[in-house]
């Protein structure tokens, strides 16, 4: 049974207000709290280490898998390995996410290692939300590592969101694309207090006509620090674009390091990075509509992180 706190965490990270339809696996305080396989999506526990295998039968369309993780026990630290095997011709949505509520004084940590083996001609949407809460002095820590191997002609869209409450994060994402594959990443990040967040994306465009678009929008408040490093290697006839757009506030610091590596004459790669405080004229405009300065800031940030 899930506690009220755990249910609340589930609502935050996966918009889940009840047990989801379709395939799911809910992990709460290091233990399985619910699992459902379907005719096309099979979830099994790993035998050699903590984690699950999610196997999606070829040709599965319009189905979803939810694999949320919630931690409400202070001091719990875990590393979980989840592998996804997506057969050819699938069209699926995968919702992961982690919520930590830490009211104690010991650090709580969840490190999810996700590996996606995606077949040919698939469409996969992956959503990962991170959320932390709790009044204790213990930190809420998440270090996700994601590997994505995208088969020929498949397209993968990844939405990575961390808006609140996670004290320390190192996100490491590696993607390898075959011919005709496409990857779109939208990262949205907000840090506050003394939080630290580091995101590293490494994308290898290995097949002809592959393309990647890696976009991060972030807001750093208070004394928080962020590092964003995005590296795209064009190893074939391919196109890659990476963009980091950050708003800094208060005494926050942001370091953006876009990297491009062209190893093929027909690789077309672009990077953009912009860091700055909220433009004064944006605040003035919203104030002329009757908003206070702080209401204007909130609207600008909410829109930016939409």
């Amino acid at each position, binding site marked *: 049974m899930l506690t009220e706190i755990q249910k609340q965490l589930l609502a935050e990270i996966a918009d889940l207000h009840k047990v989801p339809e379709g395939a799911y696996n809910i992990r709460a305080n290091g233990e399985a709290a619910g699992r459902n396989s379907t005719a096309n999506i099979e979830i099994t526990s790993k035998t050699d280490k903590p984690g699950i295998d999610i196997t999606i039968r070829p040709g599965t369309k319009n189905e979803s898998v939810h694999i949320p993780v919630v931690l409400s026990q202070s001091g719990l630290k875990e590393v979980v390995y989840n592998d996804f095997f997506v057969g050819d011709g699938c069209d699926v949505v995968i919702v992961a996410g982690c919520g930590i509520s830490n009211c104690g004084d010991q650090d709580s940590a969840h490190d999810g290692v996700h590996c996606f083996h995606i077949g040919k001609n698939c469409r996969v949407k992956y959503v990962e939300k991170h959320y932390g809460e709790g009044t204790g002095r213990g930190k809420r820590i998440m270090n996700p590592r994601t590997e994505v191997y995208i088969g020929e002609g498949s397209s993968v869209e990844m939405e990575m969101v961390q808006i609140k409450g996670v004290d320390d994060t190192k996100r490491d994402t590696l993607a390898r694309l075959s011919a005709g594959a496409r990857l779109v990443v939208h990262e949205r990040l907000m840090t506050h207090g003394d939080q630290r967040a580091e995101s590293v994306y490494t994308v290898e465009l290995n097949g002809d006509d592959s393309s990647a678009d890696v976009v991060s929008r972030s807001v750093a408040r208070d004394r928080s620090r962020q590092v964003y490093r995005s590296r795209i290697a064009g190893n074939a006839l391919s196109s890659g674009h990476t963009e980091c757009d950050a708003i800094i506030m208060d005494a926050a610091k942001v370091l953006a390091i876009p990297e491009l590596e062209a190893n093929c004459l027909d690789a077309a790669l672009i990077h953009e990075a912009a860091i700055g405080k909220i433009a004064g004229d944006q605040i003035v405009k919203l104030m*002329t*509509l009757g*908003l*206070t300065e702080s209401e204007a800031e909130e609207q600008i940030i909410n*829109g930016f992180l939409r």
Partner: protein
Amino acid sequence: MLELKNVTFGVEDADSTREIIRGVSFVVPDEQFVVITGPNGGGKSTLARLIMGIEKPSSGQILLDGQDVTELGITERARLGISFALQQPVRFKGIRVVDLLRLAAGRDLSVGDACEYLSAVGLCARDYINREVNASLSGGEMKRIEIATVLARGTTLSVFDEPEAGIDLWSFQSLIQVFENMQKRAHASILIISHQERILNIADTIILLADGQVRAQGGKDEILPELLKSTVPVTCNRILEGGAAHAD
């Protein structure tokens, strides 16, 4: 009703203070359409910013419906009933046109209501309502959305800084229509900074501002012929012919 009493405003240069507005006084009565015109660099945009509270005068008084608002900030003046369409509208990543209109209206506008404001400024509402107010919109589109936000606010005083800049000639007549419709609202008064003869033509009062001072003020029949005769600064005549975008 808006009243300016002997307003001055200066900016600090390297070793001196340069006066941009020098003792300006005028009244915008209720249900009146007042146009401020004059040469570039004459202080028109600064005057509009002083009225909105974006800049504070060095001396003098600004009154709205009899209340002294000189020391009030932008938000307070906005809430008391001043709207302002900027000469160069601001872009926002992630904020949609409908969001901006809702913020302007101060309520959760229905899509239908939002569409009405957009249609009034000549935009096909369906195409724009969910677009972000970002760099993907052209200058002309931004100008129209800016005007739509002022319509959505529906305040007693609306100030427009060169609304015609960037609006194509085809749409000009409907822009004039927008102002005429606004004027019909009870107690609504409009203050427009413009160089456009067609806008000057529908004014109740024209104020000529040059070198930070009111050089002439009166009905359009009185002022317009003088302006066109070029009795005042040469640039003014040229601007009146040219019409479009000129920054102060």
